[in-house]
């Protein structure tokens, strides 16, 4: 391991030897309108080029001379300036909004000149503009539902914000909001995501081949960055929809220096319950809210401080008998420091928390159930722009996890319920990574790196030895702070791109990922009570190896073709033994689990039109995902639940006029793999169902059309407003949400299958404004 890193560094340094005197031009790219830093802006000078990093910083080293510096970013006018490089230059770039003339309406939804030469593959960028144009359920614009329309990313269910990437399960996605891990990214039983799209600056999804700075999950990384807040002017925007209202306020604390942003959203469906004359419904609660807040401060030319936080809660209650509330809280403090024109650093201290509490009150049975996962996370990273061929990142990351799997407490002294606390689980995760993006030749670019992860399970707590029937045969007690076990895993990452010509390129990548936190969710719907567990002496770290190959071509002016194939193997996959109960009230949850391997492979194709009156894409995925776990399905390979053969998405948006735009999306997919009974029998006088295989059947295929329209009412400097209309499931397809089996009501001698379909013809209208 060490040798590889050393060799890599030696190679870099050899290339770094200056042929002639070189100077560096560096700075930060921002938007002139609101002072937001711009991520991924392209900076070119002659043949050399770079892109701004996640904090808008760029650095370009060039031989002394005269250069025309050109900068481009989505939705911004191209910035160009003649630069004389006879010393190191700091040039902060402030970019003007793109002006759209009355005659010619062209919308740029994505960067025009995507980076064919970047070795990064399996990456998808979604713009907030695209999120805005996609019609969605009940008009709630939703990042997670938009990315589900991309090739290789599949929805977890009708109207559901959970997603599966390249055969991975929903918990194998690393979801980051301003670097903080979001453990449960959905509201209201999965129908809405926790991300209020109004406050989002950048959305990047890595489906594979993720760079070494990311780790901890097998399948994907969804990296979401919030806006920093307008440091030029006060701005208020908001919206009122069918189920929720939201408001966003931002502005300078000190112009050009510091700004703030606060955004909130709350649903009000529960208000209608109050109108009911049923006293139980009146007392029922069903709502969620989100609150995002952010402050940033320029401490000087070289330092910038960011403070951001998220807090969201769901509340669900039936009368005063039953209630559950759950939610995430995250907080991030970040400090950017520019050491010199070539060395940029960021230090982050991050808190992530997810918890739920269930309250039950019935005669004599009054109790609460509480569960929580809490992370303290420290990251420190250097970005070293060594020269214009090598761009190095080195970082370390340490996380302390505390899991409280379940705590039952009586809520009054008359309750017949005893206090019962499952043991807390402590673990300490450390990662050290180094990665270099190396421009090997004019045609070949390589990113290579390694991430070394250690995961230490710490006492206090009991850990177990199981026999082959998964009964506890031995219990090992550990004292506070004592090391139970440490897993060490190197994760090599490699990505290569080869530019065939000015309009096409080939890419290949390999990545290993390791996951030490696992979600136990043994139900067909996503529940807030799904249980996170850490690796133990029995639950081993999940490991995936993904190889992918891709071909990318700009077909004509603004249409691009992307196609990738992948093969992924997964070790130490978790599934549930027959009859498993993951709510089991014991510290030895391992008794319910079985372990094995998985494999996934597929082909993804996307045709995307990025500019013009018509924008959108067509995507197709052909895929297979299987598991093999001893003790399930007679030890044979079986389809994973998320296995779907075909997935099609067509997403289109058309600018009719200055005021009107229309959009539509159509999706089709093969049904999920599912276990149906193959027979029935009688027990205690009732009919029971008999199962012979895991996931041997398929749900019916799923398809749906959504349509939408945006009507801009006013668009002035001081006030702009628009109305959005949408119709979800426009042709009313009854898509199966669940299929259950029962005895026919009309003929109790016969068995029938009953399909439950959720959403059909759901119209919505929402009003959005900004001033």
């Amino acid at each position, binding site marked *: 391991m060490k040798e590889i890193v050393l060799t890599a560094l030696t190679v870099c340094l050899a290339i770094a030897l200056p042929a002639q005197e070189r100077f560096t031009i560096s700075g930060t790219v921002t938007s002139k309108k609101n002072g937001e830093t711009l991520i991924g802006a392209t900076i070119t000078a002659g043949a050399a080029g770079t892109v701004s990093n996640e904090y808008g910083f760029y650095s370009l080293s060039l031989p002394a001379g005269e250069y025309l510096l050109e900068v481009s970013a989505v939705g911004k006018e191209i910035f160009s300036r003649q630069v004389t490089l006879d010393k190191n230059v700091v040039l902060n770039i402030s970019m003007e909004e793109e002006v759209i003339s009355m005659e010619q309406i062209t919308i740029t939804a994505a960067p025009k000149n995507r980076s064919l030469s970047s070795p990064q593959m399996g990456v998808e960028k979604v713009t907030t503009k695209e999120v805005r144009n996609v019609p969605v359920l009940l008009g709630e614009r939703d990042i997670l539902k938009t990315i589900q329309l991309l090739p290789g990313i599949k929805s977890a269910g009708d109207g559901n914000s959970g997603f599966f990437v390249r055969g991975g399960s929903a918990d194998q996605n690393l979801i980051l909001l301003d670097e903080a891990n979001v453990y449960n990214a959905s509201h*209201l*039983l999965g129908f809405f995501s926790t991300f209020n799209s109004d406050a989002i600056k950048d959305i990047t999804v890595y489906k594979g081949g993720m760079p070494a700075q990311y780790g901890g999950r097998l399948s994907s990384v969804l990296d979401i960055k919030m806006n920093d807040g307008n440091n030029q002017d006060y701005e208020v925007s908001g919206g009122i929809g069918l189920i929720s209202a939201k408001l966003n306020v931002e502005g300078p604390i000190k112009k050009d220096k510091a700004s703030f942003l606060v955004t909130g959203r709350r649903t009000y469906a529960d208000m209608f319950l109050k109108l009911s004359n*049923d006293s*139980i419904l009146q007392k029922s609660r*069903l709502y969620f809210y989100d609150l995002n807040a952010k402050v940033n401060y320029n401490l000087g030319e070289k330092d910038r401080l960011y403070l951001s936080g998220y807090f969201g809660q769901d509340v669900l209650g*039936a009368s005063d*008998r*039953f209630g*559950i509330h759950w939610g995430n809280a995250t907080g991030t403090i970040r400090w950017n420091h520019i050491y010199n024109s070539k060395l940029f650093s960021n230090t982050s201290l991050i808190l992530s928390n997810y918890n739920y509490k*269930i309250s*039950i009150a*019935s*005669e*004599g049975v009054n109790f609460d*159930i509480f569960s929580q996962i809490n992370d303290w996370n420290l990251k420190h990273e250097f970005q070293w722009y060594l020269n214009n061929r090598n761009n190095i990142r080195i970082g370390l990351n340490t996380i302390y996890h505390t899991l409280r799997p379940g705590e*039952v407490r009586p809520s009054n002294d008359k309750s017949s*319920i*005893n206090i019962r606390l499952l043991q807390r689980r402590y673990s300490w995760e450390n990662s050290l990574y180094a990665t270099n993006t190396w421009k090997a030749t004019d045609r070949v670019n390589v990113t290579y790196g390694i991430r070394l992860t250690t995961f230490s399970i710490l006492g206090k707590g009991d850990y177990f030895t199981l026999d082959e029937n998964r009964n506890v045969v031995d219990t090992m007690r550990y004292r506070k702070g004592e090391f139970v076990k440490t897993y060490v895993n190197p994760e090599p990452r490699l990505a290569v791109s080869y530019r065939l010509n000015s309009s096409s390129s080939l890419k290949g990548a390999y990545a290993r990922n390791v996951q030490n936190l696992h979600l136990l*969710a*043994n*139900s*067909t*719907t996503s529940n807030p009570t799904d249980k996170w567990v850490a690796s133990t002496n029995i639950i081993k770290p999940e490991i995936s190896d993904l190889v992918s190959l891709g071909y990318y071509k700009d077909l004509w002016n603004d249409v691009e073709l992307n196609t990738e194939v992948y093969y992924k193997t997964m070790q130490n996959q978790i599934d*549930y033994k*027959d*009859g*498993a*109960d993951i*709510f089991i*009230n014991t510290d030895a949850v391992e008794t319910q689990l079985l372990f094995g391997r998985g494999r996934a492979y597929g082909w993804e194709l996307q045709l995307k039109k990025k500019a013009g009156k018509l924008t959108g894409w067509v995507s197709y995925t052909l895929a297979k995902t299987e598991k093999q776990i001893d003790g399930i399905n007679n030890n044979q390979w079986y389809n994973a639940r998320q296995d779907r053969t075909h997935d099609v998405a067509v997403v289109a948006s058309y600018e009719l006029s200055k005021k009107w735009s229309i959009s539509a999306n159509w999706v089709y997919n093969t049904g999920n793999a599912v*276990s*149906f*009974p*193959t*027979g*029935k*029998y*009688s*027990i*205690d006088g009732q009919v*029971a*169902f*008999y*199962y*012979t295989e*895991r996931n041997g*059947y398929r749900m019916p295929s799923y398809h749906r059309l959504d349509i939408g329209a945006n009507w801009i009412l006013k668009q002035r400097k001081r006030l702009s407003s628009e109305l959005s209309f949408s119709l979800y499931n426009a042709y009313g397809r009854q898509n199966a949400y669940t*299929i*259950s089996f*029962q*005895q026919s009501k009309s003929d*109790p*001698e*016969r068995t029938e299958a*009953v*399909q*439950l*379909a*959720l959403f*059909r013809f759901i119209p919505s209208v929402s009003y959005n404004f900004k001033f």
Partner: protein
Amino acid sequence: MRRGLYTGLIALAVCLVSCEKVIDVNVRDADRRYVIEGVVTDKPERHYVKITTTQNLSDNNNFPGVRDAAVSVTDESGTSFVFVEEEDGVYKSVHSFAGVSGSIYTLTVDINGERFTAVSTMPHKVEMDTMYITEEFLFGQVRKAANIAYRDPQGERNYYRFIQFIEGMRYNRVFVTNDEYTDGNAVTDKLRTPSDDEDHQIEAGDTVTVHALCMDKANNDYWVSFLSSGATGGGGTASPANPTTNIQGGALGYFSAHTLQVLEAVAP
């Protein structure tokens, strides 16, 4: 319990937009398997073992009994009780006998050269103190439900099952509970009927009979997994499977040595 309420709330949340319909599902036929239901109680009576087979889903719900099986139950002292076929697939012990708490019983069934065995321990009997019917107002409807009160003995694990009869008609809803959270406490268990189950609601004047069973852990696990793992046909679990049985040899079903107390009340 908490999952039941939770499912109810999901149903409430989506009831306005969801719809149900009967669909055709092509299910492959599977090999038949034997289903054994064996019971020994602490009452001095002729206990029974019922043997049937699985059917295809498309078949009707007449499950023919399995004939010509050799059935016996042995206690730990080696005393063997022979069971004989009384009617189609139903075998009864030749002599009445009462099971004893703390005793381990072994069931042996031989069918066409295949042997199935199961072991069950009759647990200590926990006396139910009282049963009464109360009313509850839930989701706009008044529902009556039986309440069973008892004191759980401290320091030992106890597993309970209640079988309810309304006007002598057996109600096939599985009520199981245990003292995981209530060890040593005075407990009242309420036998709720889902509000959409119109046929099994208790009306004023109905005689309600409840069989209160104390059973062993294996049988608790059987009924818990019966409810959670798809045996009832619900589409809620991601990995449906057959309930965990204590029968060795590949048959479905259970063998239970349990204590039995019969309670009765008239609904006000």
